[in-house]
């Protein structure tokens, strides 16, 4: 559901993505280092990053925390079966709760999977997550016909995007 037209990356953008998808160089002048590696002018590199940020192709430049290492050991993907005519209004409200990091509507996979609203909740313990789930349950109210929570027990892979060469 892209709300903006997806910008087309040109060949130089793609080289920038490939050069930085694993991370930004840890040197005092990282954009100069990228420019030198790719044989580009640093002003062009910075301008292209600014454009990619402005159009949303880069969500932000920054650190991705490992929630386990920060003590957020309980990571619960809460899932809810909400009536189709109410899910968008309630999903917006759930997404506004400050402890919900991701909130989406997704298709049901009947009969195995009746849930259409996904809300990710992180906490330092399962008890903390359960308290937060109770708040979500209060927001959704009787429109929640069924619910479940899937705790993650292990990160199996976390690399982010990888463009092919």
């Amino acid at each position, binding site marked *: 559901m892209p709300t903006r037209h997806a910008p087309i990356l040109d060949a130089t953008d793609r080289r920038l993505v490939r050069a930085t998808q694993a991370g930004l160089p840890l040197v005092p002048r990282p*954009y100069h280092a990228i420019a030198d590696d790719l044989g580009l002018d640093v002003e062009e590199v910075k301008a292209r990053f600014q454009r990619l940020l402005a159009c949303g*192709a*880069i969500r932000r*430049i920054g650190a991705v*925390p490992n929630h386990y290492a920060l003590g957020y050991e309980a990571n619960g993907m809460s899932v809810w079966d909400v009536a189709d005519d109410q899910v968008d209004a309630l999903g917006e409200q759930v997404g506004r709760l400050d402890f919900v990091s991701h909130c989406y509507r997704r298709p049901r996979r009947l009969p195995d999977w009746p849930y259409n609203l996904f809300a990710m909740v992180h906490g330092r313990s399962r008890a903390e997550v359960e308290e937060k789930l109770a708040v979500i349950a209060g927001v959704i109210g009787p429109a929640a016909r069924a619910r479940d929570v*899937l705790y993650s*027990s292990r990160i*199996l*892979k976390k690399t982010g995007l*990888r463009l092919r060469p």
Partner: protein
Amino acid sequence: MDETDRRIVNALQGGFPVCDEPYAAVAATLGIGAGELIDRLRALLDRRVLSRFGPQYQVERMGGRFVLAALAVPEADFDRVTATVNAFDEVAHNYRREHRLNMWFVLATETAEQIPLIAGRIEAATGLPVYLFPKEREYFVELRLVA
């Protein structure tokens, strides 16, 4: 992790600047030098307190797709299936979760057409049906954790 590390983790989850000396700019707000910031950042990455540091690409804005997918993996096969699934470059994250659907991963592809193709390859490689959960609406996305 000491107090300075915590402040670094919190500060770097915000927008990192695009300028000639961005580490120096952020370090100044933290009252440390650029060299110390870079050294500590490298250590946080080495210790896996941070999984990554850099641009977070939003593949959908570039014409690609992110799709959540799940498998019901028999316990005895879990390690083998993990290795098989993780070997696909298109698998960006993968989590074990406590449910009958016990493996949840994100497929990141450069075009929408690749999603069913890669899902089909994963089915062939694992012998298990892949459940795809493409997002139909995004209500909110912003993971920031206070260190």
